[in-house]
């Protein structure tokens, strides 16, 4: 049997106790990709971690949708830089 890799938006919203409008806003701002199958809309399980983070940032820190977009981009840059930094440190050891 094929593994289920999506979760319906309605189930997600019930489980996480967030309004469906929040997910819709994420989609409108291109912060989340929604999969549509028939009438039902789904979130890919691989995106859950990111959505959870955006829920926290939105509800805990009052960051609006534009802010979430900026935060996401900056965090991605931080991550890329951390990876590059680690890789450069490792390479530097070759010359020590």
């Amino acid at each position, binding site marked *: 049997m094929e593994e289920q890799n999506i979760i319906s938006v309605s189930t997600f919203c019930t489980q996480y106790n967030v309004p469906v409008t929040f997910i819709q806003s994420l989609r409108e701002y291109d912060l989340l990709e929604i999969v549509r199958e028939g009438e039902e809309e789904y979130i890919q399980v691989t995106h859950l971690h990111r959505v*959870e983070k955006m829920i926290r940032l939105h509800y*805990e820190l009052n960051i609006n949708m534009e802010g979430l977009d900026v935060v996401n981009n900056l965090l991605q840059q931080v*991550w890329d830089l951390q990876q590059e930094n680690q890789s450069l440190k490792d390479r530097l050891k070759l010359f020590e």
Partner: protein
Amino acid sequence: MDYIDYYKILGLSKNATEKEIKNAYRKLARKYHPDLNPNDKEAERKFKEVNEANEVLSDAENRKKYDQYGKDWKHAEQFEKAKQQHRQQRSYQGSGQPFGEGADYSDFFESMFGGAGRSRQGGQGIRFRGQDYHAELHLDLNEVYVTHKRTLTVNGNNIRITIPAGVTNGQEIKIRGHGGPGINGGPNGDLYIKFIINNHTTFKRDKQDLYTTVDLDLYTALLGGDVTIDTFDGKVKIKVKPETQNNTKVKLKGKGFPVYKKEGVYGDLYVTYNIKLPTSLTEKEKELFAELAKLR
């Protein structure tokens, strides 16, 4: 266990208003929130401190208790009374502030307020996945040369994980569901294990490639010959070409480090020759070298 100055943590004076506390807390929470400071342990620690300070100071009753007994909490009889009074208030649910995910509380907080002082439920009843745990696993380079299993103890639970050959320094793996428990019925967080690879060998590593330096005597370098060198998994004999120059680099294909998650595939070993000139020459040797010099 030391007294913790919650006012100092929030950068406030003792007569701060509720609004000032709320503002200071929100500002610091935005600064140190773990989602905004990935892999920053110092920020995580400060976020917990700020959370704890807010737990106490944002609630009038907790604040009063803290102001009254805080400094003398170790020996005050009044504190004991406060604790008794506190036990009778088990139904207390805290201030309902929304930063429900802050993790541990200090011993000071636990002693003074116990479990019921917490308000980690979160004011909005949102079901959150539990906190992600981050751990570091220190391994020697030769331990990651082969895939092996290892049992780790995380928060009292034994977890058996497979460490694939070829993991790199700083690489992180995720173990789903082994993080903190979910909040308000949410799923458990994940456990992230970061590998710190210590290298005590003579080899230097860049991902799947290894680098080493081999001393070569002058005559082998000039005339060529065989040398036996150490690779990561044993000795190999290699041919040295005649007239090999100092710092010449040769590649031994497939003698490097295993490629991560590609069984049986290895990187290369780069050998740099370091030609050692003879010292303490005898008179005869000097004569012969002089003769060679004349030929040039």
